[in-house]
């Protein structure tokens, strides 16, 4: 353990946790956690899915009460019974899933819970002035009168931060803040965090992306299975060392894959155009081919038509024109028939689409395949379903391997494994894979990436969509770049990152090579 004992004790730590423990039934989410977060620092927290990071932050923010242990804020022992108390102590939190009222304006959201009287007029004027001031100081520009639902996610997150700051937060907790951001938005967020640090505020940030840890934090704490493994100074560590501390073994941060052995075309998209309900063209004349035994990656900033493309191929959206062929035959607009044609689909958003979170996991293990005669006749054959789920959980090391647990109660990485196991284990011929590692820890990322490569090497045709350029580059055999509903270019995965970045931003013309 290399806890930084050398920290000068004259200045009390912004936050100090002494022996904090918290259990959920038999699960020890946090056991005997010791943590010191220096004032005016950006402090990272990393750890595998289910390591207890969110639980620890929820204890700090008063969502949960620790079973035992002591919390000190600025040297003072405190009891944080609820989030009101946390706010009084100057602790603010930005949740991974924003807690904003969609049809309220920015100003109304900032005001919510701090109205300052029955009539809104005075509070509103004050909040407006405060917002303007904060925006000036921190570069947190948002239009106070814009509706939340009209704002991009990056701006919504800024509103969350503003909300915390207007309530006087001196310590800001961010739980996986970059999971939903574009690289650009993430950079802007980091700029804001650095600004806050410069003013002496303390930031606690949870992320699975070691690159971000290295880029922005001063110190980083590693958790594993509910315990604090250690805290190190960022300058004195490396991603490899952090990964090893997290997982307890060496982790391959780089994907190992041999050259592709592409066969005949399996999935062909011809001149696909798609207009959404509002009449906006989301896909504009998209054509592409995925051959057996290759991974075609689609790079692009979120919202440039990738989701629509995946959903159109998966039979969930009806294209306006164009054709989609699977092994030479036009596909039906029917997810069920497509599954029978052995097209598997890992949806981008596992909560929204890939899983029914309130189902028991064994029920989710057959979602989409529930009509299969293997699972019974008029009534379900429950033993068969149970066996199916057990074998999936075993093959994908889902933890805990409890088929009757509601899927909502698994950690993010394990939920993703549940989806992957269901779709991969049925021997598909072609795979649509959207954001396979969103919110997933590095150990699981390594595992998932390895499985995807294995599928490729087994001769499957794979279309991969991810907003993580690194992921696209390390997995794909060919990279297509999407911008504004079009495929604006094809590059090799070794192409210059800057060049890909420009293409993703819609700058075409420079250095055109190869054709789609």
């Amino acid at each position, binding site marked *: 353990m290399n806890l930084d004992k050398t920290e000068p004790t004259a200045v009390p730590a912004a936050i100090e946790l002494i022996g904090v423990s918290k*259990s*959920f*039934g*038999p699960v020890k989410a946090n056991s005997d956690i010791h943590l010191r977060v220096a004032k005016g620092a950006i402090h990272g927290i990393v750890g595998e899915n289910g390591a207890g990071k*969110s*639980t620890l932050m*929820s204890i700090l923010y008063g*969502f*949960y*009460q620790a*079973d035992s242990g002591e919390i000190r804020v600025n040297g003072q022992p405190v009891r944080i019974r609820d989030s009101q108390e946390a706010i009084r102590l100057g602790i603010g939190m930005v949740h*991974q*899933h924003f807690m904003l009222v969609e049809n309220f304006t920015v100003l109304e959201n900032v005001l919510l819970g701090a109205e300052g009287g029955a009539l809104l007029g005075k509070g509103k004027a004050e909040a407006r002035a405060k917002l303007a001031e904060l925006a000036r100081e921190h570069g947190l520009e948002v239009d106070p009168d814009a509706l939340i639902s009209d704002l991009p996610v990056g701006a919504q997150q800024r509103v969350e931060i503003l909300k915390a700051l207007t309530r006087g937060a001196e310590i800001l907790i961010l739980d*996986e803040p970059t999971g939903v951001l574009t690289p650009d938005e993430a950079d802007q967020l980091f700029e804001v965090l650095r600004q806050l640090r410069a003013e002496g505020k303390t930031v606690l940030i949870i992320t699975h992306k070691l690159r971000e840890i290295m880029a922005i934090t001063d110190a980083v704490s590693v958790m594993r299975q509910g315990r604090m493994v250690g805290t190190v100074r960022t300058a004195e560590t490396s991603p490899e060392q952090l990964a090893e501390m997290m997982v307890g073994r060496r982790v391959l941060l780089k994907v190992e894959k041999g050259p592709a052995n592409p066969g005949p075309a399996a999935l062909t998209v011809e001149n696909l155009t798609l207009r959404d309900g509002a009449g906006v063209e989301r896909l504009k004349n998209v054509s592409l081919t995925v051959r057996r035994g290759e991974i075609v990656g689609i790079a692009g900033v979120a919202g440039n038509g990738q989701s629509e493309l995946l959903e159109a191929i*998966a*039979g*969930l959206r009806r294209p306006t024109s164009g054709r989609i062929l699977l092994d030479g035959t036009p596909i039906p607009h*029917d*997810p*069920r*028939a497509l*599954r029978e044609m052995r097209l598997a*689909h890992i*949806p981008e958003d596992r909560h*929204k*689409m*890939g*899983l*029914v*979170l*309130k*189902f028991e996991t064994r*029920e989710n293990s057959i*979602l*989409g395949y*529930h*009509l299969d005669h293997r699972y019974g006749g*008029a*009534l*379900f054959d*429950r033993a068969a379903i149970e066996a199916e789920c057990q074998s999936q959980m075993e093959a994908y090391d889902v933890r805990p391997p409890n088929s009757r647990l509601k899927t*909502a*109660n698994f*950690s*993010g990485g394990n939920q993703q494994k549940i989806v992957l196991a269901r779709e991969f284990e049925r021997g598909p011929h072609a795979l649509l894979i959207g954001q396979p590692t969103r*919110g997933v820890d590095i150990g699981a990322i390594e595992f998932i990436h390895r499985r995807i490569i294995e599928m490729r090497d087994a001769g499957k045709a794979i279309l991969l969509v991810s907003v993580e350029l690194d992921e696209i580059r390390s997995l794909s055999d060919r990279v297509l770049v999407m911008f504004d509903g079009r495929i604006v270019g094809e590059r090799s995965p070794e192409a210059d990152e800057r060049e890909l970045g420009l293409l993703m931003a819609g700058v075409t013309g420079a250095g055109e090579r190869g054709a789609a």
Partner: protein
Amino acid sequence: MSQPAARLPLWVDFGLIPLLNLVAAFAVAGLVVALIGENPLDVARIILYGAFGYGEGVGFTLFYATNFIFTGLAVAVAFHAGLFNIGGEGQAYIGGLGVALVALGLDPYLPWWLLAPLAVIGAALFGALWAWIPAVLQAKRGSHIVITTIMFNFIAASLMAWLLVDVLNPGAGSMSPGTRFFDAEAVPPRLSEILAPFGVDLGGSPANLALVAAVLAALGVWLLLWRTRLGYEIRALGHNSSAAAYAGVPIARVIIIAMLISGALAGMMALNPVLGDQGRLLLEFPGGAGFVGIAVALMGRSHPLGVIFAALLFGMLYQGGSELAFEKPSISRDMLILIQGLVILFSGALENLFRPALARIFAPRAA
């Protein structure tokens, strides 16, 4: 990603919480009773005695409960599909028409045990029919099912008033608008007659074989929801419609089927009063049972077993309440409606009143 949604042990979730909600409802009701100068304990005793104290009372309690099991199941099935079927009242009313048409048409020819199964089909078919149009409007047009089913309650009421006053009314000497009496041979025996040889005395209570049908229906709903593919699709749709679409569930079709089942269950409620009790179709026979079904489903957590228990509770309130109104003239019918309202309020709207406190007590040790 983890939200602070504490899980509680099952017995707390399905036993203690409903019980506490009930106790709270009765405590407030007791307060009101005390305010009008009656002794709440006295009142409680009369209600309990009226409902369970003697054979005939039990029979009446079971009779009312039968209605509520059917309408509660109807609401519960729709709930599982994410639909709020407010139309149980109208569906039951039209279901009564189905029962009556079968009975009026066939009672000269068939004994009760041949007629009853046909009446079940008639009730289910007509109830389903009345749910079908709102279902199609929801599935294909997106017209909100709450609005359309409410409107269909009114349409059912007008239609039936017309039919019972002007069309099916035998005319001569009939005081209340309704059809003629069915042939006595066509009416199934009451539970009191069936159980009398075994020394069980249910007095002159109207409880009849529809109770058996209701319990079988509950079993059927349980099988449907948790053991069949259709039930799986209904629940997937109710929890997460995008995931259901992803899984290839034909959404419009499942919405319609779920509503047809719901309407059929509501329609079958008519078997109890129409065929089993009065032996004729009377104006306004559902008497609000369709609405009580909403409370029953809420309280029973949309689980068939929960629905049966909740239906018994409401049956008790109905029967014990009538007894109370009889014994204590100072307590009017409105008072009973108030008590029922409080039960609905505490177990439906304020369902989560005690949850946070209990979560604090039980969650840390929860499995």
